[in-house]
Structure formats: C-alpha cells, structure tokens
C-alpha cells in the first residue's frame, strides 16, 4: 500500500472531489499561486485552473460568508483558513449563518460547505495563532466537526465532509502534515461520527483525537514495556457527530479512562465526554475519569516550554499512571 504524507492525503482528497463534482471549489488565502501556505494545495491551481482554485484576499468574513451564500445555491465551497485561529474574525458568518440558516428557514435551506485548515499549537507561533476551537465549534447545533489524526483518516474524512450536505469544519494540524501513513490508492470514504480504536488494550482507555493520538500511542508503548499496563487508545476522529458508543465499549472493558486533548480545560471536548461517560457508564468506573489538557493559559511562545504546556508523551504517561493508581 502506498505511504504518503497527511498533507498529500488532504491534497488527494481535494483533487478527487474537484474532479468528481463540478460544484466543488477551493477558496482561501494563498491556496492557488502560492501553492498553499503549508503546501497542501500545491499543484492544484495548475491542474484545475482559477475557477476551481480561488485565491482570496485576506477577508475571512467576506469570503467565508460569500461561500456560505453560494452554497445556498448549490455550490460546494471548501474554504481554507490559513489557521483555524482566524475563525474568530468570521465568527458571525460561520456560527450564525452557516450553523443557523437551515434552522431559521424551517429546513428550506442547507449549506454544504467545508471549512478546513490547521488548528494547533506547538509551533511557537504565539497565543493568537495557536487556537484549537473544536469545542467552541461543536457547541453549535447545525455544524459538524472533524479532527483526523492520520493520513488515512484525513483523506477518507475530507471526502465525506465535502459530500456532506451540512456545514463541516475540518481541523488539520501543521505538525501532522509531514506525518506518513498508509493510504490505499482506490476510492474510499470514512463516515463522519465513527471513532477508531488505534490500539487495543485491557487496563486503561485513552480517549483522544488529533495529534494527541500520536502522543497517546507513544505513551501506551512505554506503559506496556516498562509498566506492564495494556492501554487501549480510542481515536474519536469526529467530535460532532460523536461516536460515544465506541468509547463506552472501551470503558466497559478497561474501567479506567484518561482523556487526552490539545484543549484548554474549561468546557473542552473532554468535559463533554467525561460527562457522557459518567452518565452512561457510571458503574463501569473503577477510578475517577481523568483528563490531560493544555495547561490553562494563553499559548506561550518559548519553544521548550510550549512543549510542556501541550500534551506530550511524558505528560500522558504521568496522567495514565495516576488513573491506574
């Protein structure tokens, strides 16, 4: 099976969907001529031309609102945010218009848009460029939120997202773009709302998503080799819709849960999941549910300290041992 990077997986998904459906358009800053600020859309302008790959001015509220308006008439825009941190300048368009237009019209309209881009810290870009807003987005009924961790997941999920008739927010990670993984050549789709058990185990369940999946897998290795603990890692892949059943099945198996997230703690994704687990699997718990989140402060610049602010394998290991005590 071919091994490609996460970046290439996203690119292939875009290319395939552009070829498949004439209404699919990629819009964003530097996506065309610049070949993408992170080279995700490299080569696409050359291949598909300026009608399908559109360079926009720095105007998120403008072009995202425009894309939403166009989607009401059947266009399927994939709008790139150079950083998901920039969503806040288009908050009204994204979370008032895209999220609500269907509801406020009593179901007469739908907005089949995708907004995609990297949402992550860990690159020393400071507090305003390091946001991970999946919790804020997922709080809005009417939207869907997807955070793939691997090239295989990224391609299958992006294709599904583009074909989805509801607004889908697709959160990538600049530090994952270079990660390699097996991705089959042929056509495949991964449905939204299906979690994936990335590693099976019996003593502890780690629920996680995004780059934290990689940290959790590393910690699981150490736990197995040095502590003889068998860890199950559940990759949510999709925040909304949420596959809580896979999580609950794992909890019923191991009885101990650690949720690892690159999120500031207050009202984070883990908060929601912890509520659901204790509500629906109370009697399966042999220990309180623990979570390992980003340390609760704006993203620090100082490079080595930022590593400690975010989840990393060592922090995951320590948290896991606390749950296992």
């Amino acid at each position: 099976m071919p091994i490609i990077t996460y970046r290439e997986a996203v690119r292939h998904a875009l290319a395939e969907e552009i070829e498949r459906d004439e209404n699919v358009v990629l819009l964003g800053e530097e996506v065309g001529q610049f070949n993408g600020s992170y080279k995700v859309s490299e080569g696409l302008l050359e291949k598909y031309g300026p009608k399908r790959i559109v360079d926009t001015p720095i105007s998120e509220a403008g072009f995202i609102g425009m894309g939403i308006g166009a989607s009401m008439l059947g266009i399927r825009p994939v709008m790139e945010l150079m950083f998901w941190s920039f969503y806040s300048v288009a908050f009204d368009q994204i979370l008032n218009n895209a999220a609500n237009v269907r509801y406020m019209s009593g179901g007469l309209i739908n907005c089949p848009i995708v907004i995609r881009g990297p949402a992550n810290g860990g690159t020393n870009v400071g507090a305003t460029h390091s946001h991970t807003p999946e919790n804020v987005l997922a709080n809005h009924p009417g939207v869907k939120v997807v955070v793939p961790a691997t090239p295989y997941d990224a391609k299958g999920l992006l294709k599904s997202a583009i074909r989805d008739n509801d607004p889908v927010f697709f959160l990538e990670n600049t530090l994952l773009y270079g990660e390699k993984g097996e991705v089959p050549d042929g056509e495949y789709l991964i449905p939204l709302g299906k979690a994936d058990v990335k590693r099976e185990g019996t003593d502890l369940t780690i629920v996680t998503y995004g780059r934290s999946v990689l940290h959790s897998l590393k910690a699981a290795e150490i736990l197995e080799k040095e502590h003889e603990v068998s860890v199950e890692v559940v990759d949510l892949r999709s925040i909304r819709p949420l596959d809580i059943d896979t999580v609950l099945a794992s909890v019923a198996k191991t009885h101990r849960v650690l949720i690892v997230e690159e999120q500031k703690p207050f009202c984070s994704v883990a908060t929601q999941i912890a509520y659901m687990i204790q509500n629906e699997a109370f009697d399966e718990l042999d220990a309180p549910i623990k979570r390992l989140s980003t340390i609760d402060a704006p993203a620090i610049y100082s490079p080595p300290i930022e590593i400690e602010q975010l989840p990393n394998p060592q922090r995951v290991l320590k948290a896991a041992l606390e749950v296992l005590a």
Partner: protein
Amino acid sequence: MADIIEMPKLSDTMTVGTLVKWLKKEGDTVANGDMLAEVETDKATMELECFFDGTLLKIFAEAGAQVEIGAPLCAIGEKGEKVEAPAKKSSPAAEEKKEEKKEEPKAEEKKAEAPKPAPQPEKPTAKPAEAPKEAVTSGRVKISPLAKKLAAEKGIDYSNVKGTGPGGRIIRADILAAEKNPPAPKAAPAAGGGKPSKPTWPWRSAFDKSPIQAEGTAALSNMRAVIAKRLVESKTQIPHFYLEIEVDAAPLNALREQLNAGLGNDGVRVSVNDLILKASALALRAVPAVNCSWTDSGIKAHANTHVSFAVAIEDGLITPVIKDTDKKSVFDISNEAKDMAKRAKAKKLAPAEFTGGTFCVSNLGMMGIERFCAIINPPNAAILAVGTTVKKPVVVKDQIVIGERMALTLSCDHRVVDGAVGAQFLNALKAHLETPALLLL
C-alpha cells in the same frame, strides 16, 4: 358595542405600563391613527395609538396609574353609548408578577438564613442539609462505582473490605480479593464481662499517608460533659491512695468453668466479673467501713451494699448498680449484670439503675490490662480496679511454679478509709476469691 382599548405590549420586555397622561378626554371624537395617551414602558415613553373611529366614551385608568398589559384603559364607541367599567382582568402578566413577588420573599428568607453558621444551642434541630457536612469522617465508605456493583452482584459486604485504591478507596481488585478470602466479620463491641475480640491492625495503615482522623473539634455530648465534671471533682477533691494485692485466680477460673459447663445448656454464662461483684459485696459485709460515704457533716454509713460496675458504651462510660448485691446469688448477679450492660449500651438504663451504688468495680482484664488505678466514683469511698489474669512464675512452697495471678488495686478515699481498713478489705476480698466456693453460699 364599544371597543375596549387595553394596555398594549409596547416592547419585547414590557410587563406593565404607566399611563402618564391622556391626550384626549371623555367625549372627544377620535379617529384611526390618533394618539390617545402617553404610556411609559420599561424602555421608553411611547404613545398609545387609536385604531378605531368614534368617540372616547370612558376612561378606566387615571393619569399616573400603573396598568398591566391587557387591562382596560378606555372605551371607544358611538356617541351616547352606555359603557360599564369591565371587571379587572387578571392578565397573565399580573399573575406572573404575583408569582415573582411570592418568590422574592422566599429568596430573601433564604438569604437571611444563610449567614447563620452551625446550629446554635437554642436551635436543637440542625438543618438536614447541613448534617452531612457536620458528620465528620467515619460513616462513608469510599468505593468505586464498579466495585460497588461487583460487591452487590457477589453478595459481598464491602464494609469489611480494605480498600487499596487512592485514599483507601475500595476498587474492583479488592472485591475480587475479598471474594477469594472473605474477611473476618467485625467483632461486636465488648459486653460487660464478656471476652472482647482483639483489635486488628491492618498492615496497610503503615503505608497510609492520609490523615489519621478528621481535624476538628467535636461538640461535647451530655454524657461526656458529666463524666468530665465528676471525674475532675473526684480527682481534685478526694484524697486518693492506692492499695494493690495479687490474687491466685486459679480456683476462681476453675469454679467458673465448672459452673459454665453446667449452666451452658441453659444458655447462661457466669463471668469472672460476676464472681468479683459477689466477692466484693461479701467483703464489704466483712469490712463495712468501706461501705460508707464522705459528707460534710460526717461519714455516712450505708446499711445495704449496692455494687456498681463500669460499662464502656459509645462515647463514654456508665456504672449500672446491682442492688443488694450481697443478698443475690451469683446466678442472679450474672443475669442482672448482663441485662443492664446490654441496656446501658442501648442507652436504655433508667437513672435509678445507675445511681445509688455504694462501691464500684472496674474491670479492664478483658482488654489485657494487668493492673491500673481507677478514679473513685463519688459518693463512694473506694473503687476496685481488676486486671487480667496472667500466667507467671510464682513461688509456692518454696518452689517456682506457674501460677495464674490477677492484680486488684483498691483506690481509697483517705477521709473515710485508712490504709489499714483498705488492707483489711482487700484481704477479705482475696480470701473470698481464693476460696470461691464461699461465693456460692
């Protein structure tokens, strides 16, 4: 039929309006579009618009009145039409307001109550909601939801299971271990005279770094307060001195076993303490000077002897009295003592049953104490402290043999009992105990 104009809703948050002033008066001709009055809402002062043509027949709300939405303001109709003031509609807004008013006093009550801290002396009943906070430490078992479910499924009483989780929490592994090795059931608290179970110290406590007990000052119960007061009085006001004698307990134990072997079929057991109570009573008959009390006007001699015995109960100590102990058989003393001890623990003793003793016996033998000095129980003149029977080397006929020895310590009130008297008493007691058949006469 006249049109009644009601107070309209003029803003999304308005519930009442104030009719500031009328712009038309009764009898005026009005038309669609005319302004009838000025109304003040929560947001601004607006104008009341007329949607009808006709004559303003009657005004129901005076200038300055506060009117709820939907309540009538005026009537418009044909000139000369008769109009009656409609009955005041209680609008939903009015009802909402009433409910709001009801809720406000409640909220205020709650606020007034909140600042008061723990129950005051004059409020004997603590609020139930506060009780759990007051309840300190013991009572709650820490157990994970999974372990609790497992324990229920397996029929395991987890109150005996030791928890190995953080903070002593019982976890699944503990329940599974308990299933394999059921823990010994907890020993019942010591009955007066019965043999208590040895306390167990789980090795786990050596590694337990959690607090030993909850920090805090617990309020004194009545019993504790009384005990404290009386003991302080006794210790500070009675000149205590102590006499000790060692008794050969072998004959006593042998008799007891004999008796119990026979009585056992009837479910009766005589304890060492029962025998000591009888022996003490007989010794008091022999040395009646000890059966007295100090009073300010002189030493009071008691004609009858009533021996009391100390019983440990929850939160303290109580001394039930066996009346006319010398006149009762060991069998009767035993039954009575057992019954009173049981009722003492259930706090069901009547005051007459724990007052009026003339002598007291305190036995810590069942707890392994070899000897001790008790504090006199006023108005008694003495108290006997009984230790445990110990096997030790003793000299008999110039030979060292294994003897069973029991230490007796008599605390005496020197105002009433001198050393010689005390010694006499102890010797009499010893004689009775070492010839226990005398107790059965």
